[in-house]
């Protein structure tokens, strides 16, 4: 059972208390973007084997959206953070680097 700490209410929530929201940090395209950019935004996914950033919602709790950094090969959780950011905060990146030196995900490393 996956357990994530909700960064808003601090509760360690079982996955049955959470709703998965898919890949995080997707840049929204809009008027003027070309077809390729739209395809990336709508459909193409990093789907990494290893470090991943995801959106989750504390659905059966405080109801808020947050982000989680996880490893898809070991199910290890590196940390969770609030949703109001365009990229993972430094302390999360450091936590990942400590365990997965040289990691890379999209534009982040």
């Amino acid at each position, binding site marked *: *059972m*996956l357990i994530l700490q909700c960064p808003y209410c601090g509760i360690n929530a079982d*996955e*049955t208390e959470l*709703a*998965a929201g*898919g*890949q995080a940090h997707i840049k929204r395209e809009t008027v003027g973007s070309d*077809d*390729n950019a*739209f*395809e*990336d935004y*709508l*459909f*193409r*996914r*990093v*789907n*990494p*084997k290893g470090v*991943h950033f*995801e959106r989750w919602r504390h659905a059966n709790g405080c109801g808020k959206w947050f982000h989680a950094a*996880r490893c*898809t*090969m*070991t*199910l290890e959780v590196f940390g969770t953070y609030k949703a109001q950011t365009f990229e993972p905060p430094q302390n999360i990146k450091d936590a990942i680097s400590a365990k997965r030196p040289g990691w890379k995900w999209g534009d982040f490393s």
Partner: protein
Amino acid sequence: MKRYSAFAIAREATRYHQGWERAWASPDPKKRYDAIIIGAGGHGLASAYYLGKNFGITNVAVIEKGWLGGGNTGRNTTIIRSNYLQDPSAAIYEKARSLYETMSQDLNYNVMFSPRGVIMLAQTHHEVRGYQRTAHANALQGVTTEWINSARVKELCPIMNIEGPRYPVLGGLWQARGGTARHDAVAWGYARACSDMGMDILQKCEVTGVMSEGGKVKGVATSRGDILCDKLGIVVAGNSGHVAEMAGFRLPLESVALQALVSEPIKPCMDIVVMANTVHGYLSQSDKGEMVIGGGTDSYNNYTQRGSFHHVEETVRALIETFPILSRLKMLRQWGGIVDVTGDRSPILSKTPLEGCFINCGWGTGGFKAIPGSGWGFAELMAKGYSPLTSEFGLDRFKEGRFIDESVAAGVAH
């Protein structure tokens, strides 16, 4: 290759079964092949087989990081049906189903195809309308299916409780020539036939990089050295995103865990396959007597081949109302596979941005049934650059908005 036959069994019986040959060779990699297929699951092996059989291309290697058939092909609940809604799906799944009918004879390998019939239960009024619509679509596509009422469902499957308060059975979509086959045997049968044509199946050989030159594929880097090729087929299911990254492109799919479980063996009580999509459960009885149960996918990315326990619980909890008999069974084993799910729940059989490199993936939760049809079409695509079976399943459909939407049509898992 010595053929399998009743005569061969008698011959071997007289000499203590000492004369059986190995079913396939385990050669060392050559320097170069005309075509390389990455992934020795059912789809990869079938693709190689039809490259040889239909197009005479036999200088082929199938490269597998583990053991052949050890991926989803050896982990699925083996349901075979072709009652999809959209025309391109009906074409490729029905091609596959019809090839299953003669596969044992064609491969000289008993794949135990058992066309015992498949019902997809309608347990909501929405499903009643949906499946009636599918039955009409299938009639136009030349796929034999039939809408049946709940009394007929009960007749076909007496252990079913059709009057459940939460999930009453209102009828079903019946495909009499759907059924099951032995999953390992499908992989083994194709592997044996490929090896017999002179192809190399390279097991315990992981592809770690794709080599290219001037936008054209040149070969692959593997744990057993670099191997060159003119054409490359990527057929690695849950690992598709990972291998595509090596080839320099990103795919519109995500990898998640799908689980199945089997009960202790009991006496024969159900001789058809039942799918209950409202509750994300499906059920058949194996020849050994185990009830084989499949569930829904997990909701998050995962490469561990393990799923979440609560999904098993949800599936079984919901099925018990319709199959009260299950409530007193012990479950023996449970396992997971990593499935590659696309947005429209349809597969991708396509050229890629890298010239000479093709991809066959996105079969997600339901590709076992498609193995021979997929191999047939993908081999044609790799050999000739075009196949009528695969033309609608290209990667460009996402950009162009030409989805083959089976997610609302054929429903949930597989």
